[in-house]
């Protein structure tokens, strides 16, 4: 069997050519084509400053954050198969994941730890961008988008906290949302809230929880924010973020 002949046969077939628009030879042309002709690779420029390869410079935190987002999307989707966002079932579903579902525990662990890791990596990403001054013109707006993404990341994590319906999540969310009571004007305990007719049953906390306390409605709201609304918003902002990286001149480097 002639391996080279077979390889040639395959790589020249119509099927192969329909998928791969370029040769596999390693030369400057294919290197460019590999990036240009692939949707995912196309996010990258063809060439980047050499500087961008240095981990001591980039810390790779943006990339890790994005990768963790992907991990969270995949594991989260799988978890959704086993989870009912209702008070009667939520906790039992977690137990079900732990005891019954094949790889359920691994799945849940990875989702949890990836979420924490993403919060950390997004902070460190910001740290790095500040330390290298990468928000400076022309990248000001992308920094703003980044700050929004950082906020959204924490909100994603926060909404996910409640879904296990255990004491840990319940009280973390209770403590967190109790602060909303004190929102000026819109919270019933906040400055001027009572002047505007705010009560525990119509203020901003009620809107967040769908009730005056953390219960079934809050669980459903947290679930929808966590699984649908926030990921969509984050995806949009990530697109903008990446797109602006390219448009604003790629990864920052000394001029």
């Amino acid at each position: 069997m002639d391996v080279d002949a077979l390889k040639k046969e395959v790589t020249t077939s119509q099927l192969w050519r329909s998928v791969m628009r370029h040769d596999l030879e390693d030369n400057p042309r294919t290197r460019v084509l590999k990036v240009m002709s692939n949707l995912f690779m196309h996010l990258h420029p063809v060439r980047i400053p050499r500087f961008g390869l240095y981990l001591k410079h980039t810390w790779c935190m943006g990339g890790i954050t994005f990768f963790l987002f992907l991990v969270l999307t995949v594991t989260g989707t799988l978890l959704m198969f086993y989870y009912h966002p209702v008070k009667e079932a939520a906790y039992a579903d977690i137990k079900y994941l732990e005891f019954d579902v094949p790889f359920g525990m691994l799945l849940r662990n990875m989702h949890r730890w990836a979420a924490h890791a993403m919060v950390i990596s997004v902070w460190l990403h910001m740290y790095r961008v500040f330390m290298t001054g990468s928000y400076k013109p022309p990248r000001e707006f992308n920094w703003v988008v980044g700050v929004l993404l950082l906020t959204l990341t924490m909100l994603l994590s926060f909404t996910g906290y409640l879904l296990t319906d255990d004491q840990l999540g319940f009280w973390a969310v209770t403590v967190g949302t109790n602060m909303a009571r004190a929102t000026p004007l819109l919270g019933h305990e906040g400055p001027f809230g009572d002047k505007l007719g705010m009560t525990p049953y119509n203020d901003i906390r009620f809107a967040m929880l769908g009730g005056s306390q953390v219960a079934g409605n809050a669980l459903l709201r947290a679930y929808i924010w966590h699984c649908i609304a926030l990921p969509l918003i984050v995806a949009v902002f990530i697109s903008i973020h990446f797109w602006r990286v390219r448009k604003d001149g790629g990864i920052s480097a000394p001029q």
Partner: protein
Amino acid sequence: MHQFWEIISKADNVPIVIMLVLVCFFTWLSFREALKYDRARAEGKTVKQAVYAEEAGFPERVAVWPHLVRQEFLVAIGVTIFLMLWSIALDAPLEELANPNVTPNPSKAPWYFLGLQELLVYFDPWIAGVMLPNVIVVGLMAIPYIDINPKGSGYYTLRERPLAISIFLFGFLFLWVLMVCIGTFARGPGWLWFWPWQHWDVHRVVAETNIDFSDKFFGVDSASPMGFWIGLAAVALWFPAVMFPPLLLPSFRRSEFFQRLGIVRYLVFASLLATMLATPVKMILRIFLHVKYIWVTEWFNV
């Protein structure tokens, strides 16, 4: 100490320990790079020479394929392996079924919000829980528009942007990361301060009498009209007190920095800075002088 180990090894606190290690490491790394650059510049090299000092002779730009792509793949796999190891070694916490009648003591927010929860000790919730987070987000967003120093874009340096970096590090390391750590490791039942070697005693009571600002320094009841005006004056005077002294110096007004910044940018910058500095100032007043509120009004307290 046993207690401390118990807190650290709590599954949900492991990320904080990891974060602490990473923050320390990256702070060291960025300082090393910055000092290296600053030294090279001091020796009279150009920016590029200083940055690329070690890789002189290599091409400045490289093809993404395979250099970057392969790096990304490696990192992705590395992260995956790290996550899997972590997941196999440590199970995600699942406590008892949520029960509104059983309040854990202390009740803590998710760890990344503990900085804000810690601020609740010093501020009323409408400040610590609502106003400050918004100021933080807005303040972060405002950074590119306030910091108009053209230098230091794309490389680590301390000497070329000392003010920006010191303010940011103070905010990030002390007002955020340190607060998270305090909230996690040092706050026990009743949100009281516990040193690592202290047992988290549920029944511990700390007798602490806090009095209001006007009482403390002027002997005026903070709820009285006079106390109201004193409090208002203290809060209202804080901002000008931080913002205007430099403006009084002709040398500052004539400086290139101020000239480029312009009065509007300066005022935005100074007011954000004043807000940021107000936080540690209030903490110090509270911790060392037992001041509860600066300004007591009928509707809210500051």
